[in-house]
């Protein structure tokens, strides 16, 4: 029986080893939150909605590349080329984000604390933001307002709503956002002033409504238009939202046009501007090395993108007349004189020789070297080098290729609101001098601009007004000019061309750049740059012998994803595809 002790040993070992636990197989996550425990407090809402901010857009300005304002060194815009492939997925990830927002909107009313309203408003704002992206690309869209399960029949029964309903839906989300969000002046905490405000939602509303109104007006009667279009409804909505901002929110234009985009206040410090409604800050320290791309982008600025001659020519002369009429216009055959007697915004938008180009950390200044050589020796396409957005004093040490400054991306500024207001009022036929004075003339009287005011009723007829394919009244022509100049490079131009049905400005065009005279040829020793018969650079002369092949019966919208139509044959394709 002495063996019993060995047996006992084995039994004890067995018992220790197995430690019979009834819930042995119940293993729940330990480093992640489970949803059933969520949606209790305003803080839950805040943390959730914080994650949606990342979608807003990043640090890269593409300077209107892919429109008639600017060209990159490659002729990238397959849409302008008419070469979008039918297999393109135009909607991309938008519904992924919409699902995320819908999860919040479906659950957020479980939180009744009024402190949650700000975040609820942000959720509506983000849903509007993503649907607006879809609207711009494919027009009519499927509206989903709740997170569906993968086996939900609604995934197949939800068809494309007409574009005006989509716009209505976006505007109604924005109205909800406006009613819930705090104003910018109420977002006083350090952690709050980069949050979306009621102000931003109003500005967004004016942008969306103007977009849809003008789209429906200029595409009316075509396959791209809306049935029974009621565009004045949208123009009114755009004008009202803008007017509300103008009257009630205390925005003013900053004195210096050039510095609106080059703020680099440290994070934690509010951006000192009366003009910026909503902007995102980047901070090289907080983003540490992996997020330093903003600096790298600035180092290679402007990344091979140059402005077009057509954009440069649209700037008025200081006498308020277009260059075709003004006696003070100096020809554009020299970069040295191109900004003479011109709207000062031009000089704040492109570099001219001899200007400060960059300052190193050791204080050494470099002057703008050369119209045709970029900072890394690369070509600059058109010869007109963008200066807008460029921060030239931020190199940390000489020779470094990683820059370490902070900068901002402006999403909404007061200038756009003024332009939205002016255009909507003009489209409604209600634009009078007092409207001009609170909008366009504010822009012209900015301290650093000082251009003569626009006088309604005495607008000089410019023979160079763009050929839109139709003839807007002179007032609207000038409002569109003002918009092009003021907002150049801020990625409005292509959208504007689309809503204005301005295919004529693209199809068959082959844009030009700066004058490439014999003096320049000597300086650069490069005689082989492609140029037109008048010696203006024409970068794509050889590639695009017939110009851009934008197809006005098709390319105003991207193809609706064909994979979606395969899965659900009840979905319709866009015109021409």
């Amino acid at each position: 029986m002495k063996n019993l002790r060995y047996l006992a040993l084995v039994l004890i070992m067995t018992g220790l080893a197995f430690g019979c636990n009834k819930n042995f197989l119940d293993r729940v996550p330990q480093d992640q939150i489970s949803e059933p425990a969520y949606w209790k407090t305003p803080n839950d809402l805040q943390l959730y909605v914080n994650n949606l901010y990342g979608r807003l857009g990043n640090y890269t300005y593409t300077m209107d590349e892919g429109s008639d304002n600017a060209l990159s060194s490659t002729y990238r815009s397959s849409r302008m080329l008419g070469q979008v492939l039918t297999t393109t997925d135009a909607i991309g990830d938008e519904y992924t984000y919409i699902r995320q927002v819908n999860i919040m909107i479906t659950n957020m009313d479980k939180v009744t604390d009024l402190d949650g309203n700000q975040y609820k408003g942000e959720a509506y704002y983000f849903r509007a933001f993503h649907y607006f992206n879809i609207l711009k690309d494919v027009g009519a869209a499927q509206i989903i307002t709740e997170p569906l399960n993968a086996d939900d029949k609604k995934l197949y029964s939800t068809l494309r709503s007409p574009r005006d309903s989509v716009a209505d839906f976006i505007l109604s989300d924005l109205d909800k956002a406006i009613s819930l969000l705090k104003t910018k002046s109420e977002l006083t905490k350090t952690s709050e002033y980069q949050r979306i405000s009621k102000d931003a939602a109003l500005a967004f509303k004016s942008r969306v409504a103007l977009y849809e109104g003008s789209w429906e007006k200029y595409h009316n009667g075509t396959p791209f238009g809306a049935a029974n279009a009621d565009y004045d409804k949208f123009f009114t909505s755009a004008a009202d939202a803008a007017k509300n901002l103008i009257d009630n929110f205390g925005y003013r234009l900053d004195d210096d046009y050039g510095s609106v985009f080059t703020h680099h206040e440290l994070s934690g410090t509010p951006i000192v501007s009366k003009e910026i409604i909503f902007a995102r800050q980047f901070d090289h320290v907080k983003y540490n090395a992996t997020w330093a791309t903003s600096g790298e982008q600035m180092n290679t600025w402007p990344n091979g993108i140059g402005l077009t001659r057509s954009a440069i020519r649209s700037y008025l002369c200081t006498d308020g007349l277009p260059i075709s009429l003004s006696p003070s216009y100096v020809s554009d055959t020299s970069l040295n004189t191109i900004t003479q007697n011109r709207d000062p915004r031009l000089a704040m938008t492109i570099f001219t020789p001899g200007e400060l180009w960059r300052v190193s950390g050791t204080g050494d200044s470099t002057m703008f070297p050369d119209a045709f050589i970029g900072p890394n020796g690369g070509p600059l396409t058109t010869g007109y080098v963008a200066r807008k957005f460029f921060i030239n004093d931020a190199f940390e040490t000489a020779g470094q290729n990683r820059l370490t400054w902070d900068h901002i991306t402006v999403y909404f500024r007061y200038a756009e609101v003024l332009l939205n207001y002016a255009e909507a009022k003009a489209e409604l036929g209600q634009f009078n001098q007092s409207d001009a004075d609170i909008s366009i003339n504010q822009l012209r009287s900015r301290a650093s601009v000082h251009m003569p005011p626009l006088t309604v009723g005495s607008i000089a007829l410019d023979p160079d007004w763009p050929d839109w394919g139709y003839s807007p009244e002179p007032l609207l022509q000038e409002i569109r000019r003002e918009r092009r100049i003021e907002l150049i490079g801020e990625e409005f131009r292509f959208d504007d061309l689309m809503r204005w049905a301005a295919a004529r400005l693209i199809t068959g065009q082959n844009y030009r750049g700066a004058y490439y005279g014999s003096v320049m040829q000597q300086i650069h020793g490069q005689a082989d740059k492609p140029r037109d018969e008048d010696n203006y650079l024409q970068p794509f002369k050889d590639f695009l012998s017939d110009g851009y092949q934008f197809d006005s019966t098709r390319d105003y919208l991207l193809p609706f994803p064909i994979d979606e139509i395969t899965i659900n044959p009840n979905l319709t394709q866009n015109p021409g595809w």
Partner: protein
Amino acid sequence: MLLIMRLTAIFLLVGCMTASATAYSQKITLKARNISLERVFREFKRQSGYSFVYRDNWIREAARVDLNLENASITNALDACFRDQPLTYAIVDKTVVITLKQPPVPSGKIDIPSLPQIVVRGTVKDQNGHPLAGVTISLKGTQTATATDEKGNYTISLPDNRGSLVYSYIGYDKMEKSVAAGSEINVVLSSNISTLNELVTVGYGVQKKVDVTGAVSQISGEEIANRPVSNLEQALQGAIPGLNFLASNNTGEPGGSYSVNIRGLASLSNSKGNASYSTGQPYILVDGVPMDLNDVDPNNIASISVLKDAASSAIYGARAAYGVILITTKNGKNTAGLKVSYSYNYAMAQPTKFIPSVDALTYALAIDSAAANAGASTMPYTSDVIERIKQYMKDPEHAPSVYPNASGTGWDFDAVGYGANANTDWYDALFRKNAIRQTHNINISGSDGNTSYALSAGLFHEDGVSRFSNDEYSRKTLNGQINVHPLTWLKAALITKYVGTHSRNPNVLIVNRLAPTLPLHNPLGGYFLNSNIPQTMAQTATSDAAKWILSPSISIKPTRNWVTTVQYNYTYTNSTGAIANGTSYEIEPDSTRKGTNQNGTNYSSSMIRTIYQSPTLTSSYHRQVGSHYFGALIGFQEELETVFGLNGKNTYLLTDNVPSISTAVGVASVDDSKSHWATQSVFGRLNYNYKDKYLLEANVRRDGSSRFAKGSRWGTFPSLSLGYNIAKEAFFPFKDKISMMKFRFSWGSIGNQNVANYLYAPVMSTGQTTYLLGSERSYGVNAPSETTIGLTWEKVNTKDLGLDMYVFNNKLSITADWYQSDNTALIGPGVVVPEIYGGTVPKANNGTLRTTGWEVQINWRQSPGRGFSYFANFNLSDYKSVVTSYNNPLKLLSTFYEGETIGEIWGYKTDGLFQSVDEVDKRGIDQTLFYKGAWAPGDLKYRDLDGDGVITQGQKKADDHGDMTVIGNNTPRYHFGLYAGASYKGFDLSFRIQGVAKWDQWPGAGGQSSFWGPTAGPGLGAVVLKGQQDFWRYDNKDAFWPRPYRVANSNPRINMNKGTSDRYLQNRAYMRLKALQIGYSLPASLTQKIQASQLRLYFSGDNLITRTKYMFFDPEVGGYDNHYPLQKVYSFGLNVTF
């Protein structure tokens, strides 16, 4: 579960009470009736300590005996046993050797006993020169016999010098020698591994090969030892049919690993579109402990057994769905006394293949013509630079390789090296030909009375072949095993293992994507940033892992038929990693430094601790009743793994020399990760056989996994296998030639829980966003994951038909298997739903995959005598997987569809290249799917299969695919291996050839792919390898490559000629001399001087010769992108045993 515990306890108790402890004695007491000899011998052994050597079939066929022994001597006892048997015995030391009695001398003669006339002496050794003890030596046709002693020596007295001596020993071929040969006859017996008594390691035990009914392959450690390889995977490649190893881009790195699968058994996991196919990882047990193949020292292995079909692996359940690999390390159980062996290997490695690049001038001209084709107005290489290139190539000593740019602040070349004018062969510059590897292994084992032990230590160190990344890998292993047998009914064992690995990983070098015009060296010192060399040198990425394993076990054996074992496995793994990115720069012509300053430096560190605990209780019983053998096993197992990780990072290192989080002063961040999973299982097995002729085995296992929600957590998985050894039948006509001919059939089902933890819980991950709120990047909570609903065990049902044969006195053995595995209830991505769903469709049990395959293994082994012996083992295997059902009613090609052969490549047939503008104009087939602009001579003609005049993809469905068709398959088919060798006197030679006979690859259209040469577009993709200058030009119209266009990646032209096409499909089939070994064992007369029993010197090489049609790169890696090359290795080594 509680119930089982109680039952176990009860029969443990019962078992113990019937046992009794007895110490050894020289006297034997045994009273029994009708007892089998086998039992008798075991009892004798238990009482006396004598060992018995015999052939199983003799003993099994022998008559049962009645014994009445009381304190009998061993000889008396044995005499009593053998009285009426056709057997006799000899005693050598404490070993009893049993042999057949010879037929009595015919009665007509008068047998006059005569005095011995002559005495013959000699030594018997094995092929390796080890003396063999206990070899029976008999005079043919007489009862005169003796046996060798411990040193292999024998002496036999014979009546005269007529007749011949027969040398026989279990496990070795019999040998005959004429007595006339002399008074000293030394004999070398060659072992016959494939004898009938060969033991095979199977789940929770060992089985005789004749009794195995599942598909099991086993090889011995010898077959893979002494290879200059960094891990076991490399050594096993090609050794076992159905055990497949596939290389990846990182396999060539120091310590790099292969992906392993058994029979291609697969699961559908992540993504084809949003779904993908991945072969499953087999379950690997080393001495019963789950480990990685890479953690095992290849030189410390006794045997490796691969359980391939469900029936043989089913006993391991939950984690064995993709097969099981059982590894037994060397232990001291079969070593008498002390044995010490040491082996050493010194190796030099170089890339298997040096990728040939064209010279700088050819390169520049090719790039320029690609630019011209794209309509570029300025050439990447201006005539000036081309002139400089010519100068440099003519006189590299004196011509500058690079010039400063106009402003003098930088060098005159772009990101890839355009503009510079050197002539650099980058592959040659970045890789070296003499990376050193060293292997040491020492093994001490032995047994002494009731204890056996083994201690081994291994050390492996490998330098990488990358010249600049200073990469290395080392592994230290320590193994200790001690088995004690203090009482006849009690055994205890402790296995301890330590594996420590250290690696310094290479940065990703831009291999082969740099222009040859970029100089290697900066004329002002150092290297250029473009080459990535400074960044590589500035980075230190190390990872260290230490694994400690403790595995104690206790067995009690109350009767000789019943064993109960409790084993507890505890594995503690601690892995740490650190990456330091220091400053890196190049010197500009104005002597400034460009690059990363301190601000760009950073350091990150991570720690992961994994604890795995698993107790296993098994109890087995077996009994032979007459000709019926019964065996039963029941067991219970639990597993729990907990993982805890901690990661930290900081930026701005104060100094590169001491990188750490503490010496950095930027923004620090830290996060952790925790997870755990558990399983619980009960299992049982029944074995039955009748005279080793009819065999049956049945298993059942019930598994629960924490990875599934309550309610779908448990699964039951049965299996059954049958065997029939027809050679045992009386009517079998070829008994003299075929000693075994066994048909096997098995069917089994296993569960697979190989999914992520917590899929059923809607978790919301947290993290820092990229958006600043206030002064900090804000924190955010992600949307809850889409949860699985009712996700449960994936089932693998496998049928296997097999045949095992031993022919020609076991010289030839053949094993063949055919199998079919159905993975049902596959865990895969959910059905494709409209984009408006917006989420990741949760995983679901969604479809069935059928894998059908076969494998053949043929082994030949012979020792014709005169010290010569040779062997050849050939294996061939193949499989193919077809999706038999999948939730994809539209049969979209974007995910799996019913009828799809896994690995199929959809693409276009082609009709060559356009040869003239006229042909482009007249062909009349719309190719705008690829490019909407004008096509030109030299562009690819896609074939209009459906004849509608337009190249389309249809609706991208299996039954509406336009002009797409299946042009190939990327599953490797027909894996083969040949392992052969010979030995003569002290010399031995062996080699292994391994390959794949059919394998397609689409190189991809990516602009970064080196495959396309100048066609790849600008930037890093633009390389020109030898052969790639054969692109279409008016003066080279029958070119292989299309007209190259140097355009940006987003340019619509970039992929116009790169649509997936049969023209550029690659053939990855290859045959490779994987290993070659030539050795020489010093004669005993020399080795004895250093008191060694054996000393062998050898040369061993790896990957020496390769035959393939694969273009440019190594077919095994198959990379046209950044990859680390596999290596060709030459090595020398020695093995010494004391």
